[in-house]
């Protein structure tokens, strides 16, 4: 069904190689998230899969058939754009029906499918409105509706939630995950938000400067980041990365320790420092500790009830089993 294989896919704009040769397989029915900092080539990669950009080299195989040269319409993929790209002069009904109309489907079948999609996405009361009369979340659902009526082999999402406010984003995130559970169709999802990546993905692809840094399940990436980049990118708040003298004591060039794996004590510990900012979230408190003798500020996650504030002296002890060690090239040491 919707298996997507990329082999040696390359993209150059003029002399600039934005995607060096890259291999990736997205399994059928998988929720695959491309994540990386802005400008890392994740959107370009999605557009290559969609066919909106032509590859400079390599092959794209969709569902067993070579789609490298196929135009976007022939790839049987549906895309949800960051700006939703709804057609402003058409009603919601016509927007959702547009791909069916282009495919020359009989009107009764079109109406049946549009009604079904509208029901799934709770859009039935809005079918005769125009996109301009809808809220951001509703527009997002129309864009998804337009994608699902075609019953594509795979869905492509290009940062679909970045235009929504925080509360809506959490809601839509759940809705998209829910949709994936129901449809079981391959989904490829691009985001720069690692929380979205962690919560939604079956498989995360971490990209940096067009290269794949690591591919794996969210917890794999969290527990065993392959290199310093992935270690710093996945997890919130960020993993503490310590290099230099503090790391050499552990036999590595750089060590990483997650904020939740540092024990805080007021009496004794490996590092001693002063609390800078204490962010009280209620459930958790994030302490930013400096003056520990390390070059970097150490972030520590503690319970919400702790009574430490700005200026408190604390002792920190990293959990020795949870220390990630990296060599001089930033690669993980066993």
């Amino acid at each position, binding site marked *: 069904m919707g298996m997507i294989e990329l082999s040696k896919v390359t993209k150059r704009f003029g002399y600039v190689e934005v995607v060096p040769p890259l291999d990736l397989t997205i399994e059928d029915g998988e929720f695959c998230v491309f994540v990386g900092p802005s400008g890392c080539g994740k959107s370009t990669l999605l557009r290559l899969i969609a066919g*909106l950009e032509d590859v400079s080299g390599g092959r794209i195989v969709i569902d067993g058939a070579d789609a490298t040269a196929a135009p976007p*319409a022939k790839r049987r993929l549906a895309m949800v754009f960051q700006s939703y*790209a709804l057609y402003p002069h058409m009603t919601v009904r016509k927007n959702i029906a547009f*791909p069916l109309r282009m495919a020359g489907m009989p009107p009764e079948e079109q109406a049946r499918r549009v009604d079904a999609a509208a029901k799934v996405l709770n859009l039935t009361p809005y079918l005769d409105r125009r996109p301009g009369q809808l809220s951001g979340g509703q527009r997002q659902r129309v864009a998804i509706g337009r994608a699902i009526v075609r019953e594509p082999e795979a869905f492509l999402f290009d940062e679909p939630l970045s235009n929504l406010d925080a509360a809506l984003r959490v809601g839509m995130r759940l809705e998209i995950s829910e949709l994936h559970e129901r449809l079981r169709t391959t989904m490829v999802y691009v985001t720069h938000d690692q929380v979205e990546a962690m919560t939604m993905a079956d498989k995360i692809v971490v990209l940096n400067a067009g290269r794949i840094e690591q591919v794996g399940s969210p917890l794999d990436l969290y527990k065993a980041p392959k290199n310093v980049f992935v270690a710093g990118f996945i997890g919130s708040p960020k993993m503490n990365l310590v290099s230099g003298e503090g790391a050499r004591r552990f036999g590595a060039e750089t060590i990483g320790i997650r904020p939740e794996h540092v024990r805080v004590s007021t009496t004794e510990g490996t590092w001693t420092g002063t609390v800078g900012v204490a962010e009280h979230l209620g459930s958790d408190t994030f302490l930013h500790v400096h003056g520990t003798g390390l070059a970097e500020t150490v972030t520590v996650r503690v319970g919400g009830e702790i009574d430490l504030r700005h200026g408190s002296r604390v002792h920190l002890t990293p959990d020795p089993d949870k220390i990630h060690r990296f060599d001089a090239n930033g690669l993980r040491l066993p």
Partner: protein
Amino acid sequence: MSTQASRAAARLMLSPAVILLLMWMIVPLAMTLWFSTLRYRLLQPGAHPFVGLRNYVFFVTDPAFSTAIVNTLILVGGVLVITVVLGILLALLLDQPMWGQGVVRLLVIAPFFVMPTVSALVWKNMFMSPTSGLFAELSKAVGLVPFDFFGQAPLASVIAIVAWQWLPFATLILLTALQSLDREQLEAAEMDGAPPLKRFWFIILPHLARGVTVVILIQTIFLLSVFAEIRVTTNGGPGVASTNLPFLVYARSLLQFDVGAGAAGGVVAIILANIVAIFLMRAVGKNLDA
């Protein structure tokens, strides 16, 4: 937030400009209305007696009048169709990335800067003249008899000249409209399986509706009063074949020295312009809403 006092002050300060503009409009209009009810011929000195609506009857029952009305509408309609259709095509062309885009765009806009009388003269003498024009030379070169544009197709020739002048305006407005189209919409349509022609029909053309409306409304205002091009090329002829309403008003008042009939023609022209405006706003005005 404006307070009552600031609004009053704003009104007070605006009033000189508003009053001046109002006078500028009201006085000539009132005088035209007044003259249109007088027997006022420059060749007959003496009193200008009040004649009621006789000037209107005289103007409207003139056989040239119905021709002039039809010609006016054909001129406006013809130029609108040509400029909108070619304008859309040119805008699509200019929107493509190409070498020397800036220079080409400047050149396309150039005809708009040429004065109507000058461009009409250039067309008349250098292109359309049956003896020395470029088109005549081209016909002769392939063994055809030169076509006498202003003798055989006077109104069509005038339409061609006026359309040439207004095409840049239409192109410019439509090009900016085209550039404001969200590229992702076109990409979405491409993903949805719409080939280029359908993308044009279902996405680009509806997006251009507002631009087309602006072009139609603004051009109509100016096209209803086309005069210089006719005066310079055909002088309204042969006969009245290329006479439009403004030219007929001119002929009455300045060729026949009948101020009263000319004024009556002017009032008729105002009424015609308002009728056209009402129809246009009904037909395309809704495109201007949000």
